[in-house]
């Protein structure tokens, strides 16, 4: 499955690139996250209990960051595995400066889905991925704005752990709202978004 798109961030590229740092915060930010460890400089592994509507399962995800050219582009490879099946994917993300200190993101992803996930979840795979990615990026953008404004006002952005329902509704919002942390972590966040996309997809074949 191909995922492709563009997104305009309301902040300068450096900040977009910088608002992501520390994995530990993310672990607490993502409900259901049971473990999240940094295996090597560019490799992260996580386990999370994901629930979307009635569908749930323990998913283990692995993210590898490669070819990164700060603050411009990088490639990420995602692998997720759970009882309902597996997901393998590669994503390329490019950030380029846009007018009035905004940032244009281009992303291309190719996702391979297998198992029950693939065989009964087709009815709306496309629309789920579209909408969840958009939600994720919107939320990240909000976090960006928060970061920018708080930088100006000096206020700290508080993080309030979301309910899983809110979480499922707008995955990355919660991540972003304080995973104002390590770059790698956001990509793990993105990986998780992908995993969740896949899980959501599963429900859709059912009526």
């Amino acid at each position, binding site marked *: *499955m191909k995922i492709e798109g563009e997104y305009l961030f309301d902040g300068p590229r450096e900040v977009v690139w910088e608002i992501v740092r520390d994995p530990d915060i993310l672990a607490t930010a993502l409900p259901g996250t049971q473990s999240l460890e940094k295996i090597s400089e560019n490799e992260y592994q996580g386990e999370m209990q994901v629930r979307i509507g009635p569908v749930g399962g323990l998913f283990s995800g692995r993210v590898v960051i490669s070819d990164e050219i700060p603050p411009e582009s990088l490639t990420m490879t995602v692998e997720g595995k759970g*009882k309902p*099946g*597996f997901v*393998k994917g590669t994503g390329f993300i490019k950030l380029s400066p846009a007018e009035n200190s905004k940032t244009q993101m281009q992303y291309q992803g190719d996702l*391979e*889905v*297998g*198992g*029950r996930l*693939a*065989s*009964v979840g*087709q*009815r709306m795979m496309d629309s789920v991925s579209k909408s969840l990615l958009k939600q994720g990026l919107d939320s990240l953008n909000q976090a960006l704005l928060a970061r920018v404004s708080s930088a100006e006002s000096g206020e700290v952005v508080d993080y309030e752990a979301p309910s899983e329902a809110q979480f499922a509704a707008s995955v990355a919002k919660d991540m972003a709202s304080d995973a104002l942390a390590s770059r790698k972590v956001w990509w793990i966040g993105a990986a998780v978004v992908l995993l969740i996309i896949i899980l959501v997809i599963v429900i859709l*074949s*059912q*009526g």
Partner: protein
Amino acid sequence: MKKYIGERIKRNEDPRLLTGQALFVDDVDLPGMLYAAFLRSDYAHARLISIDVSEALQRPGVVAVYTAEIMGDEWQPGPANVSPPPTVENITFHSRTQLPLAKGKVRHVGEPIAVVVAESRYIAEDALEDILIEFEPLEVVADIEKALDPEAPLVHDDLDSNLAAYMVQDKGDYQAAKTKADVIIKRRIEIDRGAAAAMENRGIVANWEARSQHLTVWDTTQAPIPIRNGVASRLGLNQTQVRVIAPYIGGGFGPKMMMHYPEEIMIPWLSVKLGRPVKWIEDRRENFFGTTQERSQVHDAEILLSNEGKILGISHKFLHDSGAYDPYGLTIPLNTESHAAGAYDVPNYHSELTVVFTNKMYTSPIRGAGRPQGIFLVERLLDIAARELGIDPLEIRLRNLIPPEAFPYDREIIDQAFALLTFDSGNYKPAIEMAAEKIGYEQFIKEEGPRLRAEGHTVGIGIIPFVETTGVGPYEGARVNIEPSGKVTVATGVGTQGQGHFTSFAQIVAEQLGVPVSDIDLVTGDSADFHWGTGTFASRGAVVAGNAIHASASIVRGKVLKLASKLLNAPEEELELEDGFVRVADLPRLSISLGDLAAEANPLRGAVEPGTEPGLEATAYFGPKSGATAFGVHAMIIEVDQETLMVEIKRYVVVEDCGTVLNPLILDGQVHGGVAMGIGNSYYEQLIFDENAQLLNASFADYLIPTACEIPNIEVAHFVTPSPLNPLGTKGAGEAGAIPVPALFAQALENAFADVGLEILEMPLSPNRLFELLQEKVSQP
């Protein structure tokens, strides 16, 4: 004498089926029975690094878990299901048969890797989730056209390519004919995969009785005898130690043939191993991944014609997708070759078949079995030719039919049974005219069609003739016996899956013995009752088993007449058999019941004369020297919603010539069912795989089997050209209904969209696909 053959007689089997009292495999319930579930691959192609079953074994209720490794020396690939092709000229064939459990690597999604045996199916499925497997994903062979690229990954590492088979067949001199052709039409034609999707999934119950050293297997198979033989050989048992019962079967359509599926070998093996009865019932998900599929082929086709529309030659090079293994040999592609010249007299024919391995479930014949692809090819080419030459589609077909005087007609190629393909008999033109008459072809072309279009309706008509090679050997047999009760018992080895054999076969016996059909009890598909035979497939039941039954019944009739003439003191020619009695024609009072006669034939005192046998029983066999070729014509009028591309079938007409008709009621039902499946194959049913050979629609929510609302009323008429190859004159009909439908659908759609010059070169279609094709037309007219 009273007629039974050809009568619309109600089915003997129905009362039990209607009241839920007929035994299906899943109904078998034995004390101490265990339940199996298979762990299947999520990957289309991956190396098996490690399998850890320890946690599964810990789970309460789990009795055993097996993998290929745990099976040790007892692991061996399944047998080939049909004899490998003969070593004719330029033939390559690499036999790779299915495995009981995957070893080393998996070759398609759904391939069994491990089996759990537990006290209930629920627990067995729980335990599947306890098994941990480490896979190393490999590059996938998903596209048949890329399968032979030099850099393509190998499905079977020990072969140097994914080539499974290659074969060339020629009639006449195609290249020479090409130099003389006025018109040459070349097209690429593609047909994709579908599922048989019988309402009953597969299932096996095996019960090994150690004390009697005897194995009983209930199997949803169309071919119990070959399965009995295969199981016996795999388990190292004598054939007499194994009894295979094919009870009532919830639909077959091909994939339940003698496939020796992994489960068909594993379940009996497990029962012997564990000394307890073991049951495995396939669920619908498994059916989409673990039961054979069909139809995927890509043809580069060419037809040569004269300006008068006479076919000078047909040539096609094609790829057949065999999936991960090829246990069913060349049956499907050879069938395609046998039908790619349709019902036409084609002097020059060149065909090149290439079978490739891919990382998909392996294929085997499904109702039609390669024939729909062949008919689709020739009929598509003819429709395109008709347009180019400005000849009416029906007319160009009439100009090319094999004439009645040409029979037996030699195609000069070999068929699926490796016999020379000869059409035994036929009289095509009147049958086509009958169909054209019924659908009102002329009238629609000239008046109705134009009028409806003027009123804004998008309507189209189609009419397609087709042949079907049926009734192939090797043989079937039957035993007929008259009981002292006067009832007649008949036993044959073929399985039955709803074709009404309990009735149509009984009619054949009734015709000989003058016994009411309801007094004839048929046993079919139980190797304990009759253990010679092949099975019900390739539209062969009524032809091969039917004539074997006819042969045994005739012998019994002879015995009846002989004994009765002795007891009644009347010459045999003056005797007649009716209503269970033998009567002297002009002295009806002089009569004896068949029951009493049977008792007399098995005396308790005195001696049975030398050279004679006790009882009124006979066993006989029938093996046709070649298949009988049936013929049919389908015609259809459709209306398409121009905006939504939904298609409504306004009328559907079938004229069927399958030789002597045993029971028109049953035959009509067979035709209706075939047409319904053909409509599915044309506009609803398609197995959709992604580029990693993952099946994307493995449920009845996404794989669209037509309901009563999509299938029209079908008007069926019969035209009879008996086969000279068997005493009954029968030809097969089981698959016929499905064969021409894709070609018919394409023709009717092109007729409906003639104004935009729509050309259809693929099947199946869908409203979505039709929308795309029309968009393309609009964008580059």
